[in-house]
């Protein structure tokens, strides 16, 4: 056999042996794995989020020496938005006592939900994943603050009603839902259908297959034919910039196109050029670098050359999303430390911490995020909180706040979530009953 092959086999063998060996024991600290994606077809949305998540935690390490004096061990694992790689990442990090997992993919979340309770690692799926998981009585280990996709759809309808001059004006209007033709995209459909029935507007669905993400010509032509008044865009990755461009191209009034919070990347809106000015998206946090905590990130992470991202992109909308997510992680760990009195907390402790988490306006201010986001409140029953969101609007160069905070229609969404959760438990025969005690409000 010639040498190259032998060498390849040798390397492969060495790697096999190495991988079989037990993992090295983690040093003293709190292990926070970040399942991120900077590669693949969705890297465009994934990279700024990954940077934001990483930078905030790194900043805590640099500025405060971690949380409560315990250093955070941050490890990124690349999922490429691919479920197979995601599960590998989950399995490989599971053994190192992670305190929380962030799958950052609805597909991966669906797979990890049953495992979370077995492995005793809480899942923090910040405003994505399974909407039904907001029912803490059925899903004690899964958290989706600050709100679910179903809440988001209801906020959109509320916003439209406000702009049109009252809910009674919705009658006869045509509202379109442009969505990725995948479970993530189909998520808001039941709520939208319910709302269409309640308020008498026509709901039109415009699925965009993943293969035609970047070629939406016929979708937008159909929108033109149907004379749609408002559009809600439940898209992700390359689908969003294309949607914005197509809206501009077909002369759709851009300020009547409202994206879900994941359609709010700066790159998404920038693609539309000057014509994209006025594009709206739901959001639950501010953007920009004016917040003290953001300044700290620049100071402790970027000035010390510890960052992997581009300094100019700090404070962009999706970057801020990552920071927000990490702030929730940090706050959960801190709450867990308070609740348990321990310094080095485990996944079980952080689950309790998440259930007792209450970030008030004052607390946001203490964290250096005054006015960054609305208070977040999670309880044992309600793992999402159905918190308020606002509409951000693209001003041509950045997203600015375009509305007051809008309350989701909890009266409509909550019963739907509860029945969906019940349904989930029934379909997954043998779904464990909640045995975890509730700490209550501390």
């Amino acid at each position, binding site marked *: 056999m010639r040498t190259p092959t032998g060498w390849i086999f040798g390397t492969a063998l060495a790697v096999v042996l*190495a991988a079989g060996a037990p993992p090295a024991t983690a040093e003293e600290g709190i292990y926070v794995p970040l399942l991120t994606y*900077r590669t693949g077809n969705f890297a465009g949305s994934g990279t700024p989020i990954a940077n934001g998540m990483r930078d905030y935690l790194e900043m805590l390490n640099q500025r405060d020496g971690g949380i409560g004096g315990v250093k955070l061990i941050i490890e*990124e694992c690349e999922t490429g938005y691919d479920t197979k790689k995601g*599960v590998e990442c989950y399995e490989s990090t599971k053994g190192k006592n992670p305190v929380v997992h962030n799958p950052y993919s609805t597909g991966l979340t669906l797979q990890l939900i049953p495992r979370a309770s077995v492995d005793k690692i809480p899942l923090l799926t910040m405003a994505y994943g399974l909407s039904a998981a907001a029912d803490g009585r059925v899903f004690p280990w899964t958290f989706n603050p600050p709100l679910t996709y179903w809440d988001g759809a209801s906020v959109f309808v509320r916003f439209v009603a406000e702009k049109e001059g009252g809910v009674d004006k919705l009658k006869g209007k045509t509202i379109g839902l442009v969505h990725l033709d995948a479970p993530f995209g189909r998520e808001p459909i039941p709520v939208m259908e319910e709302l269409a029935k309640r308020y008498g507007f026509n709901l039109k669905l415009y699925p965009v297959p993943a293969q035609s993400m970047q070629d939406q010509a016929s979708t937008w032509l159909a929108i033109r034919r149907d004379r749609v008044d408002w559009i809600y865009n439940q898209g992700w990755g390359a689908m969003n910039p294309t949607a914005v461009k197509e809206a501009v191209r077909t002369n759709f009034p851009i300020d009547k196109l409202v994206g879900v919070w994941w359609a709010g990347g700066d790159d998404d809106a920038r693609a539309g050029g000057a014509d994209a000015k006025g594009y709206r998206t739901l959001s639950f946090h501010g953007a920009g670098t004016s917040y003290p905590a953001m300044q700290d990130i620049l100071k402790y992470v970027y000035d010390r050359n510890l960052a992997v991202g581009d300094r100019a992109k700090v404070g962009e909308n999706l970057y801020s999303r990552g920071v927000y997510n990490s702030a929730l992680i940090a706050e959960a760990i801190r709450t867990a430390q308070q609740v348990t009195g321990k310094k080095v907390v485990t996944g079980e402790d952080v689950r309790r911490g998440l259930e007792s988490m209450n970030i008030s306006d004052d607390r946001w201010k203490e964290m250096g995020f005054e006015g960054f986001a609305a208070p977040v409140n999670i309880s044992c029953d309600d793992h999402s909180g159905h918190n308020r969101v606002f509409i951000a609007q693209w001003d041509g160069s950045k997203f600015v706040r375009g509305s007051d905070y809008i309350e989701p229609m909890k009266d409509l969404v909550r019963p739907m979530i509860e029945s969906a959760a019940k349904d989930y438990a029934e379909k997954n025969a043998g779904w464990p009953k909640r045995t975890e005690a509730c700490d209550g409000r501390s």
Partner: protein
Amino acid sequence: MFYREAGQFKTSYYADQAIFPILQDRIGVAAILFVAFTLPLAASDFFVGSVMIPFLVFSLAAIGLNILTGYTGLISLGTGAFMGVGAYACYKLTTIFPDVPIVAHILAAGFFSAAIGVIFGLPSLRIKGFYLAVATLAAQFFLQWCFVRIPWLYNNNASGAIEVPVRTLMGIDVTGANATPMVRYYVILAIVVAMTWVASNIVHGRVGRQWMAVRDMDIAAELIGIRLLNTKLLAFAVSSFYCGVAGAVMMFLWYGGGEAADAFNINQSFNILFMVIIGGLGSLIGSFFGAAFISSFPTLLKFGLPMVGIHIGSASVEHLTHFAIGALIIAFLIVEPHGLARLWQIGKQKLRVWPFPY
């Protein structure tokens, strides 16, 4: 010296037709099986769950595609979708008949996949080569569309996902979150070993020879009395059966539910085709080699490098892995265009004459 057939006399036709006529081969297979069955006792859960289970699942799918592409010469890019049919069929079956053991459902799901495979195999009677490959793409995209658009397939689940219910076998959980990687590994291993044995018998028998005759020259095969219609469709059926079982196993014993439509996308089809070509067309053992190379090697590279002390950023590892896999594919093809299986044969040949070169 140790590996040669000298002195092993066959006294009956039956013995001469054995799949492993040489004693050393039988010992070798026994050793491999022994290692396969004892491996989980020694290896970590991560290794069993994230390396071995995917390896076995993909091996099964690769065997399926190899039957079609390697033995019958029909290229298919619809493998992912056929796997998906198996997964969805298994899901429907187990929710309709919850009391039947899950393994029976997994095998039954293969028949649904086979039926769909036959339908999409019909164009193979008129077209071949890359034209056929593109025709099977129609199957891939159409079926994938069905997986999203027909809510009945996923029991009208709001998130469009397959949710795998807990199923037990002899009192032990084999699906669901409580099933340990070891248990799932053993179930998969049993299925893969049994199905590989069946496949080996099929391809070495009359049917397999018909397939190969069609592959080598369909017109000549027709002239010696092989019915092309039946043979090609049978290849599609058997191949899809294997893929369907692999898909059901993948969803139920490896993934444990989730966004199935996405798991069976076009990339999956391509991956399995790569496995078959890299492993060796028309070789069962090649299917295993190919699966190991395309599925397990990147995983090992990604998680193995940090463990041996090489630390690179998570994204860079991914880029380098991509690049390395690409370069290795080309390198392998240049060194041995007939796949890893051919290397294996050469190795055996060398071993036979070792220590003398001739």
